[in-house]
Protein backbone atom coordinates (compact mmCIF):
# COMPACT_ATOMS: atom_id res chain seq x y z
CA UNK A 1 0.00 0.00 0.00
CA UNK A 2 2.75 2.41 0.93
CA UNK A 3 4.61 1.90 -2.35
CA UNK A 4 4.49 5.16 -4.35
CA UNK A 5 3.67 3.37 -7.64
CA UNK A 6 0.64 1.75 -6.07
CA UNK A 7 -0.51 5.01 -4.58
CA UNK A 8 -0.21 6.72 -7.95
CA UNK A 9 -2.28 3.92 -9.49
CA UNK A 10 -5.07 4.37 -6.95
CA UNK A 11 -4.98 8.12 -7.46
CA UNK A 12 -5.33 7.59 -11.20
CA UNK A 13 -8.36 5.33 -10.64
CA UNK A 14 -9.97 8.02 -8.46
CA UNK A 15 -9.29 10.70 -11.09
CA UNK A 16 -10.93 8.55 -13.76
CA UNK A 17 -14.01 8.10 -11.62
CA UNK A 18 -14.27 11.86 -11.08
CA UNK A 19 -13.94 12.47 -14.82
CA UNK A 20 -16.58 9.90 -15.76
CA UNK A 21 -19.05 11.45 -13.35
CA UNK A 22 -18.34 14.90 -14.74
CA UNK A 23 -19.51 13.55 -18.09
CA UNK A 24 -23.07 13.75 -16.77
CA UNK A 25 -23.13 17.25 -15.35
CA UNK A 26 -26.88 17.80 -14.93
CA UNK A 27 -27.46 14.36 -13.45
CA UNK A 28 -24.60 14.97 -11.07
CA UNK A 29 -26.15 18.22 -9.85
CA UNK A 30 -29.54 16.55 -9.42
CA UNK A 31 -27.89 13.72 -7.49
CA UNK A 32 -26.06 16.15 -5.22
CA UNK A 33 -29.36 17.75 -4.23
CA UNK A 34 -31.25 14.45 -4.00
CA UNK A 35 -28.68 12.81 -1.79
CA UNK A 36 -28.70 15.71 0.59
CA UNK A 37 -32.49 15.49 0.66
CA UNK A 38 -32.34 11.98 2.09
CA UNK A 39 -30.35 13.11 5.11
CA UNK A 40 -32.42 16.29 5.46
CA UNK A 41 -35.53 14.11 5.75
CA UNK A 42 -33.87 11.87 8.35
CA UNK A 43 -33.17 14.88 10.53
CA UNK A 44 -36.61 16.35 9.83
CA UNK A 45 -38.21 13.11 11.00
CA UNK A 46 -36.57 13.59 14.39
CA UNK A 47 -37.89 17.14 14.54
CA UNK A 48 -41.40 15.94 13.69
CA UNK A 49 -41.26 13.32 16.45
CA UNK A 50 -40.24 16.02 18.92
CA UNK A 51 -43.21 18.05 17.71
CA UNK A 52 -45.52 15.60 19.49
CA UNK A 53 -43.32 14.70 22.48
CA UNK A 54 -40.96 16.61 24.77
CA UNK A 55 -38.68 13.67 25.51
CA UNK A 56 -37.56 10.59 23.64
CA UNK A 57 -36.25 7.78 25.85
CA UNK A 58 -35.45 10.37 28.54
CA UNK A 59 -33.56 12.72 26.20
CA UNK A 60 -34.48 16.24 25.10
CA UNK A 61 -34.34 17.47 21.53
CA UNK A 62 -30.99 19.24 22.01
CA UNK A 63 -29.43 16.12 23.53
CA UNK A 64 -30.92 13.85 20.87
CA UNK A 65 -29.56 16.12 18.14
CA UNK A 66 -26.00 15.29 19.27
CA UNK A 67 -26.82 11.62 18.74
CA UNK A 68 -28.43 12.41 15.38
CA UNK A 69 -25.49 14.57 14.27
CA UNK A 70 -22.91 11.89 15.08
CA UNK A 71 -24.99 9.24 13.34
CA UNK A 72 -25.83 11.14 10.17
CA UNK A 73 -22.33 12.53 9.68
CA UNK A 74 -20.74 9.11 10.21
CA UNK A 75 -23.21 7.20 8.07
CA UNK A 76 -23.16 9.72 5.21
CA UNK A 77 -19.36 9.83 5.15
CA UNK A 78 -18.98 6.05 5.29
CA UNK A 79 -21.64 5.73 2.60
CA UNK A 80 -19.67 8.15 0.44
CA UNK A 81 -16.37 6.31 0.93
CA UNK A 82 -17.38 2.63 0.88
CA UNK A 83 -21.18 2.52 0.61
CA UNK A 84 -21.12 1.42 -3.02
CA UNK A 85 -19.61 -1.93 -2.02
CA UNK A 86 -23.25 -2.93 -1.55
CA UNK A 87 -23.26 -3.19 -5.34
CA UNK A 88 -20.97 -6.21 -5.12
CA UNK A 89 -23.57 -8.59 -6.65
CA UNK A 90 -23.74 -6.28 -9.67
CA UNK A 91 -19.94 -6.20 -9.92
CA UNK A 92 -19.93 -10.00 -9.96
CA UNK A 93 -22.73 -10.21 -12.56
CA UNK A 94 -21.28 -7.61 -14.94
CA UNK A 95 -17.81 -9.13 -14.75
CA UNK A 96 -16.23 -6.02 -13.23
CA UNK A 97 -15.16 -8.20 -10.34
CA UNK A 98 -13.22 -10.56 -12.64
CA UNK A 99 -11.70 -7.61 -14.47
CA UNK A 100 -10.50 -6.20 -11.16
CA UNK A 101 -9.02 -9.54 -10.15
CA UNK A 102 -6.74 -9.72 -13.19
CA UNK A 103 -5.17 -6.34 -12.39
CA UNK A 104 -2.06 -5.99 -10.26
CA UNK A 105 -3.79 -4.20 -7.36
CA UNK A 106 -5.85 -5.29 -4.36
CA UNK A 107 -9.50 -5.91 -5.26
CA UNK A 108 -11.35 -3.94 -2.55
CA UNK A 109 -9.64 -0.55 -2.98
CA UNK A 110 -9.99 -0.87 -6.76
CA UNK A 111 -13.74 -1.48 -6.53
CA UNK A 112 -14.23 1.38 -4.07
CA UNK A 113 -12.25 3.89 -6.11
CA UNK A 114 -13.70 2.84 -9.46
CA UNK A 115 -17.23 3.39 -8.23
CA UNK A 116 -16.81 6.18 -5.69
CA UNK A 117 -20.18 8.00 -5.59
CA UNK A 118 -18.90 11.58 -5.41
CA UNK A 119 -22.50 12.83 -5.52
CA UNK A 120 -22.87 11.70 -1.92
CA UNK A 121 -20.49 14.47 -0.84
CA UNK A 122 -23.45 16.79 -0.28
CA UNK A 123 -24.91 14.39 2.24
CA UNK A 124 -21.69 14.11 4.24
CA UNK A 125 -21.36 17.91 4.31
CA UNK A 126 -24.94 18.29 5.55
CA UNK A 127 -24.30 15.62 8.20
CA UNK A 128 -21.25 17.56 9.35
CA UNK A 129 -23.31 20.75 9.56
CA UNK A 130 -25.91 19.02 11.74
CA UNK A 131 -23.15 17.64 13.97
CA UNK A 132 -21.47 21.04 14.41
CA UNK A 133 -24.80 22.74 15.08
CA UNK A 134 -25.79 20.06 17.61
CA UNK A 135 -22.46 20.26 19.45
CA UNK A 136 -22.63 24.05 19.56
CA UNK A 137 -26.21 24.23 20.83
CA UNK A 138 -26.29 21.35 23.31
CA UNK A 139 -24.73 23.44 26.09
CA UNK A 140 -21.72 21.14 26.43
CA UNK A 141 -19.29 21.92 29.24
CA UNK A 142 -16.12 21.83 27.10
CA UNK A 143 -13.08 20.27 28.79
CA UNK A 144 -9.88 19.25 26.93
CA UNK A 145 -11.07 15.63 27.17
CA UNK A 146 -14.42 16.41 25.59
CA UNK A 147 -12.80 18.45 22.82
CA UNK A 148 -10.59 15.43 22.06
CA UNK A 149 -13.61 13.12 22.09
CA UNK A 150 -15.55 15.44 19.78
CA UNK A 151 -12.65 15.18 17.33
CA UNK A 152 -12.08 11.41 17.65
CA UNK A 153 -15.61 10.01 17.94
CA UNK A 154 -16.91 11.12 14.50
CA UNK A 155 -14.05 9.54 12.49
CA UNK A 156 -14.27 6.41 14.67
CA UNK A 157 -17.97 6.19 13.83
CA UNK A 158 -17.14 6.58 10.13
CA UNK A 159 -14.70 3.65 10.36
CA UNK A 160 -17.32 1.62 12.19
CA UNK A 161 -20.01 2.19 9.54
CA UNK A 162 -17.47 1.54 6.77
CA UNK A 163 -16.67 -1.81 8.41
CA UNK A 164 -20.39 -2.59 8.59
CA UNK A 165 -20.79 -1.85 4.88
CA UNK A 166 -17.91 -4.14 3.92
CA UNK A 167 -18.87 -6.96 6.28
CA UNK A 168 -22.50 -7.06 5.18
CA UNK A 169 -21.53 -6.85 1.50
CA UNK A 170 -19.47 -10.04 1.84
CA UNK A 171 -22.74 -11.93 2.43
CA UNK A 172 -23.33 -11.73 -1.32
CA UNK A 173 -20.18 -13.81 -1.92
CA UNK A 174 -22.18 -16.71 -0.45
CA UNK A 175 -25.69 -15.62 -1.33
CA UNK A 176 -25.78 -13.59 -4.51
CA UNK A 177 -29.55 -13.00 -4.30
CA UNK A 178 -29.40 -11.70 -0.73
CA UNK A 179 -30.78 -8.45 -2.16
CA UNK A 180 -31.72 -5.92 0.46
CA UNK A 181 -30.66 -8.12 3.39
CA UNK A 182 -27.53 -6.03 3.97
CA UNK A 183 -29.73 -2.92 4.23
CA UNK A 184 -31.21 -4.24 7.45
CA UNK A 185 -27.83 -3.81 9.14
CA UNK A 186 -26.45 -0.80 7.23
CA UNK A 187 -29.51 1.45 6.92
CA UNK A 188 -30.99 -0.28 9.97
CA UNK A 189 -27.83 0.68 11.86
CA UNK A 190 -28.18 4.25 10.71
CA UNK A 191 -31.75 4.44 12.03
CA UNK A 192 -30.77 2.64 15.23
CA UNK A 193 -27.93 5.08 15.94
CA UNK A 194 -30.14 8.12 15.28
CA UNK A 195 -31.88 7.73 18.65
CA UNK A 196 -30.69 7.15 22.21
CA UNK A 197 -30.55 3.37 22.80
CA UNK A 198 -32.90 3.84 25.79
CA UNK A 199 -35.66 4.08 23.17
CA UNK A 200 -35.25 0.40 22.32
CA UNK A 201 -35.74 -2.57 24.55
CA UNK A 202 -35.18 -6.24 25.18
CA UNK A 203 -32.93 -8.51 23.16
CA UNK A 204 -33.28 -6.23 20.13
CA UNK A 205 -31.41 -3.47 21.94
CA UNK A 206 -28.85 -5.93 23.30
CA UNK A 207 -28.23 -7.30 19.80
CA UNK A 208 -27.87 -4.02 17.91
CA UNK A 209 -26.35 -1.88 20.65
CA UNK A 210 -23.80 -4.27 22.12
CA UNK A 211 -23.88 -7.44 20.00
CA UNK A 212 -23.06 -5.48 16.86
CA UNK A 213 -21.64 -2.47 18.70
CA UNK A 214 -23.89 0.30 17.35
CA UNK A 215 -24.20 1.89 20.81
CA UNK A 216 -20.59 3.08 20.47
CA UNK A 217 -21.28 5.02 17.27
CA UNK A 218 -23.32 7.85 18.72
CA UNK A 219 -25.02 7.03 22.02
CA UNK A 220 -22.08 6.53 24.37
CA UNK A 221 -19.91 9.29 22.86
CA UNK A 222 -22.93 11.64 23.13
CA UNK A 223 -23.41 10.74 26.80
CA UNK A 224 -19.75 11.47 27.51
CA UNK A 225 -19.91 14.78 25.64
CA UNK A 226 -23.10 15.83 27.44
CA UNK A 227 -21.72 14.66 30.79
CA UNK A 228 -24.79 12.51 31.45
CA UNK A 229 -24.60 9.24 33.32
CA UNK A 230 -25.88 6.26 31.36
CA UNK A 231 -29.49 5.48 32.38
CA UNK A 232 -28.67 1.86 31.60
CA UNK A 233 -25.79 1.90 34.12
CA UNK A 234 -22.62 1.54 32.04
CA UNK A 235 -19.61 3.46 33.42
CA UNK A 236 -18.70 6.88 31.99
CA UNK A 237 -15.43 5.78 30.32
CA UNK A 238 -17.43 3.68 27.83
CA UNK A 239 -17.96 6.90 25.85
CA UNK A 240 -14.24 6.90 25.05
CA UNK A 241 -14.26 3.30 23.85
CA UNK A 242 -15.57 4.09 20.36
CA UNK A 243 -12.17 4.20 18.57
CA UNK A 244 -11.31 0.78 19.99
CA UNK A 245 -14.67 -0.65 18.93
CA UNK A 246 -14.18 0.84 15.46
CA UNK A 247 -10.78 -0.84 15.13
CA UNK A 248 -12.24 -4.21 16.13
CA UNK A 249 -15.01 -3.73 13.56
CA UNK A 250 -12.47 -2.86 10.89
CA UNK A 251 -10.49 -6.03 11.69
CA UNK A 252 -13.67 -8.12 11.45
CA UNK A 253 -14.47 -6.50 8.09
CA UNK A 254 -10.98 -7.19 6.72
CA UNK A 255 -11.23 -10.82 7.79
CA UNK A 256 -14.74 -11.20 6.35
CA UNK A 257 -13.59 -9.74 3.05
CA UNK A 258 -10.57 -12.03 2.86
CA UNK A 259 -12.60 -15.15 3.64
CA UNK A 260 -15.37 -14.05 1.28
CA UNK A 261 -13.07 -13.44 -1.68
CA UNK A 262 -11.52 -16.86 -1.15
CA UNK A 263 -14.99 -18.36 -1.20
CA UNK A 264 -15.71 -16.53 -4.47
CA UNK A 265 -12.58 -18.03 -6.00
CA UNK A 266 -13.66 -21.50 -5.07
CA UNK A 267 -17.19 -21.21 -6.45
CA UNK A 268 -16.94 -18.57 -9.15
CA UNK A 269 -19.65 -16.81 -11.02
Amino acid sequence: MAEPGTRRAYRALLGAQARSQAAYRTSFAVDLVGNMGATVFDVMTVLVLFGVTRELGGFTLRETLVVVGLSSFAFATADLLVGNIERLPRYVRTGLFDAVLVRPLAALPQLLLMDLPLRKVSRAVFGLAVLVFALASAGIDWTPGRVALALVAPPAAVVFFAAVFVTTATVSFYWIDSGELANSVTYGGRDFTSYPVTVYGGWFRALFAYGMGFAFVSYHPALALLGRPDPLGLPAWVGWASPGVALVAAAVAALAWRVGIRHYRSTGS
Partner: protein
Amino acid sequence: MNVIEMDGLRKEFTVRVRTGRLRREKRTVTAVDGVDLRVERGEMLGYIGPNGAGKSTTLKMLTGVLMPSAGRARVCGLRPVADRTRLALRIGVVFGQRSQLWWDLPLRDSFALLRHVYRVPSAEHAARLARCRSLLDLDEFLDTPVRQLSLGQRMRGELTAALLHGPEVLFLDEPTIGLDVVSKQAVRGFLAELGRAGEPPWCSPPTTWRTSSGSAAASW
Protein backbone atom coordinates in the same frame (compact mmCIF):
# COMPACT_ATOMS: atom_id res chain seq x y z
CA MET B 1 10.69 -23.21 -21.47
CA ASN B 2 7.09 -23.71 -20.38
CA VAL B 3 5.14 -20.56 -19.70
CA ILE B 4 1.95 -22.40 -18.78
CA GLU B 5 1.90 -25.69 -16.91
CA MET B 6 -1.16 -27.59 -15.79
CA ASP B 7 -1.24 -30.96 -14.08
CA GLY B 8 -4.56 -32.65 -13.45
CA LEU B 9 -6.32 -29.29 -13.17
CA ARG B 10 -9.89 -29.74 -11.97
CA LYS B 11 -12.78 -27.47 -11.12
CA GLU B 12 -15.99 -28.60 -9.50
CA PHE B 13 -19.00 -26.49 -8.69
CA THR B 14 -21.76 -27.46 -6.32
CA VAL B 15 -25.16 -26.47 -7.60
CA ARG B 16 -28.54 -26.80 -5.96
CA VAL B 17 -31.09 -28.52 -8.11
CA ARG B 18 -34.81 -28.38 -7.45
CA THR B 19 -35.98 -31.98 -7.25
CA GLY B 20 -39.48 -31.47 -5.93
CA ARG B 21 -41.75 -28.60 -5.03
CA LEU B 22 -39.67 -27.75 -2.03
CA ARG B 23 -36.80 -30.19 -1.95
CA ARG B 24 -33.43 -29.19 -3.24
CA GLU B 25 -30.43 -31.37 -3.76
CA LYS B 26 -26.79 -30.44 -3.86
CA ARG B 27 -25.05 -31.78 -6.91
CA THR B 28 -21.45 -31.56 -7.94
CA VAL B 29 -20.78 -30.52 -11.51
CA THR B 30 -17.31 -30.98 -12.91
CA ALA B 31 -16.54 -28.04 -15.17
CA VAL B 32 -12.90 -28.90 -15.85
CA ASP B 33 -11.91 -32.53 -15.47
CA GLY B 34 -8.19 -33.05 -15.06
CA VAL B 35 -6.40 -31.06 -17.74
CA ASP B 36 -2.66 -31.64 -18.29
CA LEU B 37 -1.00 -29.17 -20.58
CA ARG B 38 2.30 -27.48 -21.28
CA VAL B 39 2.58 -24.34 -23.37
CA GLU B 40 5.95 -23.00 -24.47
CA ARG B 41 7.05 -19.42 -24.72
CA GLY B 42 5.87 -17.81 -27.95
CA GLU B 43 3.36 -20.52 -28.72
CA MET B 44 -0.13 -19.69 -29.95
CA LEU B 45 -2.82 -21.95 -28.65
CA GLY B 46 -6.46 -22.26 -29.56
CA TYR B 47 -8.52 -23.78 -26.76
CA ILE B 48 -11.64 -25.02 -28.45
CA GLY B 49 -14.86 -26.61 -27.27
CA PRO B 50 -18.62 -26.28 -27.37
CA ASN B 51 -20.53 -23.96 -24.99
CA GLY B 52 -20.24 -25.12 -21.40
CA ALA B 53 -17.11 -27.20 -21.99
CA GLY B 54 -15.16 -25.37 -19.28
CA LYS B 55 -12.95 -23.18 -21.47
CA SER B 56 -13.60 -19.97 -19.57
CA THR B 57 -13.30 -21.78 -16.25
CA THR B 58 -9.83 -23.02 -17.24
CA LEU B 59 -8.85 -19.52 -18.25
CA LYS B 60 -10.13 -18.09 -14.98
CA MET B 61 -8.07 -20.62 -13.03
CA LEU B 62 -4.95 -19.67 -15.00
CA THR B 63 -5.48 -15.94 -14.40
CA GLY B 64 -6.13 -16.23 -10.65
CA VAL B 65 -9.83 -15.41 -10.72
CA LEU B 66 -10.88 -18.91 -9.67
CA MET B 67 -9.21 -21.37 -7.34
CA PRO B 68 -8.80 -24.90 -8.79
CA SER B 69 -10.54 -27.71 -6.87
CA ALA B 70 -7.58 -29.99 -7.52
CA GLY B 71 -4.40 -30.14 -9.53
CA ARG B 72 -1.60 -27.70 -10.09
CA ALA B 73 -1.26 -24.67 -12.32
CA ARG B 74 1.75 -22.44 -13.00
CA VAL B 75 1.81 -19.41 -15.25
CA CYS B 76 5.19 -17.72 -15.74
CA GLY B 77 6.33 -19.93 -12.88
CA LEU B 78 3.79 -18.32 -10.49
CA ARG B 79 0.78 -19.78 -8.71
CA PRO B 80 -2.18 -17.91 -10.21
CA VAL B 81 -4.32 -17.40 -7.10
CA ALA B 82 -1.60 -17.05 -4.47
CA ASP B 83 0.59 -14.73 -6.57
CA ARG B 84 -2.33 -12.98 -8.27
CA THR B 85 -1.11 -9.39 -8.30
CA ARG B 86 2.46 -10.34 -9.31
CA LEU B 87 1.11 -12.53 -12.09
CA ALA B 88 -1.25 -9.78 -13.27
CA LEU B 89 1.76 -7.63 -14.20
CA ARG B 90 3.01 -10.34 -16.56
CA ILE B 91 -0.19 -11.40 -18.31
CA GLY B 92 -2.86 -9.68 -20.38
CA VAL B 93 -6.48 -10.79 -20.31
CA VAL B 94 -9.42 -10.04 -22.59
CA PHE B 95 -12.86 -11.30 -21.58
CA GLY B 96 -14.81 -11.12 -24.83
CA GLN B 97 -18.17 -10.40 -23.25
CA ARG B 98 -16.92 -8.15 -20.49
CA SER B 99 -15.08 -4.89 -20.57
CA GLN B 100 -11.81 -3.83 -18.99
CA LEU B 101 -12.26 -0.26 -20.16
CA TRP B 102 -13.80 2.77 -18.47
CA TRP B 103 -17.27 3.10 -19.91
CA ASP B 104 -17.63 6.88 -19.78
CA LEU B 105 -14.08 7.87 -20.64
CA PRO B 106 -12.40 8.20 -24.04
CA LEU B 107 -10.34 5.17 -25.01
CA ARG B 108 -7.18 7.26 -24.70
CA ASP B 109 -7.94 7.94 -21.01
CA SER B 110 -8.46 4.25 -20.27
CA PHE B 111 -5.04 3.53 -21.74
CA ALA B 112 -3.40 6.29 -19.74
CA LEU B 113 -5.04 4.96 -16.61
CA LEU B 114 -3.82 1.43 -17.24
CA ARG B 115 -0.28 2.75 -17.50
CA HIS B 116 -0.55 3.81 -13.85
CA VAL B 117 -2.31 0.64 -12.77
CA TYR B 118 0.42 -1.53 -14.33
CA ARG B 119 3.23 0.94 -13.54
CA VAL B 120 4.63 1.01 -17.08
CA PRO B 121 7.43 3.49 -17.94
CA SER B 122 5.90 6.09 -20.26
CA ALA B 123 8.33 5.57 -23.15
CA GLU B 124 7.55 1.85 -23.30
CA HIS B 125 3.84 2.56 -23.00
CA ALA B 126 3.96 5.12 -25.83
CA ALA B 127 5.86 2.77 -28.12
CA ARG B 128 3.42 -0.09 -27.60
CA LEU B 129 0.43 2.19 -28.03
CA ALA B 130 1.85 3.58 -31.28
CA ARG B 131 2.27 0.06 -32.61
CA CYS B 132 -1.29 -0.95 -31.68
CA ARG B 133 -2.67 2.26 -33.17
CA SER B 134 -1.15 1.49 -36.54
CA LEU B 135 -1.98 -2.24 -36.51
CA LEU B 136 -5.53 -1.87 -35.23
CA ASP B 137 -6.46 1.52 -36.77
CA LEU B 138 -7.38 3.03 -33.42
CA ASP B 139 -6.81 6.65 -34.35
CA GLU B 140 -10.30 7.47 -35.57
CA PHE B 141 -11.97 6.59 -32.26
CA LEU B 142 -9.25 7.14 -29.68
CA ASP B 143 -11.09 10.17 -28.27
CA THR B 144 -14.55 8.58 -28.23
CA PRO B 145 -16.05 7.48 -24.91
CA VAL B 146 -16.07 3.69 -24.75
CA ARG B 147 -19.85 3.49 -24.40
CA GLN B 148 -20.21 5.00 -27.88
CA LEU B 149 -17.88 2.53 -29.60
CA SER B 150 -19.13 -0.25 -31.82
CA LEU B 151 -18.43 -3.79 -30.65
CA GLY B 152 -15.59 -4.19 -33.16
CA GLN B 153 -13.98 -0.90 -32.13
CA ARG B 154 -14.34 -1.79 -28.46
CA MET B 155 -12.71 -5.16 -28.96
CA ARG B 156 -9.74 -3.52 -30.67
CA GLY B 157 -9.53 -1.26 -27.65
CA GLU B 158 -9.69 -4.24 -25.28
CA LEU B 159 -6.85 -5.98 -27.13
CA THR B 160 -4.70 -2.86 -26.90
CA ALA B 161 -5.50 -2.48 -23.20
CA ALA B 162 -4.35 -6.05 -22.57
CA LEU B 163 -1.02 -5.49 -24.37
CA LEU B 164 0.15 -2.09 -23.14
CA HIS B 165 2.13 -3.49 -20.23
CA GLY B 166 3.96 -5.94 -22.48
CA PRO B 167 2.57 -9.19 -21.08
CA GLU B 168 4.41 -12.47 -21.49
CA VAL B 169 1.13 -14.31 -21.92
CA LEU B 170 -2.02 -13.00 -23.56
CA PHE B 171 -5.28 -14.74 -22.59
CA LEU B 172 -8.22 -14.13 -24.89
CA ASP B 173 -11.65 -15.44 -23.92
CA GLU B 174 -13.87 -15.52 -27.02
CA PRO B 175 -12.35 -12.34 -28.46
CA THR B 176 -14.35 -12.42 -31.69
CA ILE B 177 -17.76 -13.25 -30.21
CA GLY B 178 -20.49 -11.15 -31.78
CA LEU B 179 -18.13 -9.43 -34.22
CA ASP B 180 -18.98 -9.04 -37.88
CA VAL B 181 -16.84 -10.73 -40.55
CA VAL B 182 -14.67 -7.68 -41.19
CA SER B 183 -13.91 -7.06 -37.52
CA LYS B 184 -13.21 -10.75 -36.97
CA GLN B 185 -10.72 -10.61 -39.82
CA ALA B 186 -9.05 -7.54 -38.32
CA VAL B 187 -8.65 -9.22 -34.91
CA ARG B 188 -7.31 -12.44 -36.43
CA GLY B 189 -4.89 -10.57 -38.65
CA PHE B 190 -3.64 -8.63 -35.66
CA LEU B 191 -3.10 -11.78 -33.62
CA ALA B 192 -1.20 -13.41 -36.46
CA GLU B 193 0.97 -10.30 -36.77
CA LEU B 194 1.56 -10.36 -33.03
CA GLY B 195 2.77 -13.96 -33.25
CA ARG B 196 5.27 -13.06 -35.98
CA ALA B 197 6.58 -9.85 -34.51
CA GLY B 198 9.51 -10.78 -32.33
CA GLU B 199 10.83 -7.23 -32.56
CA PRO B 200 10.57 -4.30 -30.13
CA PRO B 201 8.44 -3.03 -28.57
CA TRP B 202 7.07 -6.52 -27.91
CA CYS B 203 10.61 -7.90 -27.56
CA SER B 204 9.31 -11.42 -27.51
CA PRO B 205 5.91 -12.29 -28.92
CA PRO B 206 3.52 -13.15 -26.09
CA THR B 207 2.29 -16.66 -25.71
CA THR B 208 -1.31 -16.41 -26.88
CA TRP B 209 -4.13 -18.46 -25.43
CA ARG B 210 -7.45 -18.08 -27.15
CA THR B 211 -10.68 -19.82 -26.22
CA SER B 212 -13.33 -20.25 -28.85
CA SER B 213 -16.61 -22.12 -28.96
CA GLY B 214 -17.22 -24.93 -31.44
CA SER B 215 -18.66 -22.97 -34.32
CA ALA B 216 -15.67 -20.69 -34.52
CA ALA B 217 -13.18 -23.56 -34.37
CA ALA B 218 -13.13 -24.14 -38.10
CA SER B 219 -12.35 -20.53 -38.83
CA TRP B 220 -9.41 -20.19 -36.43
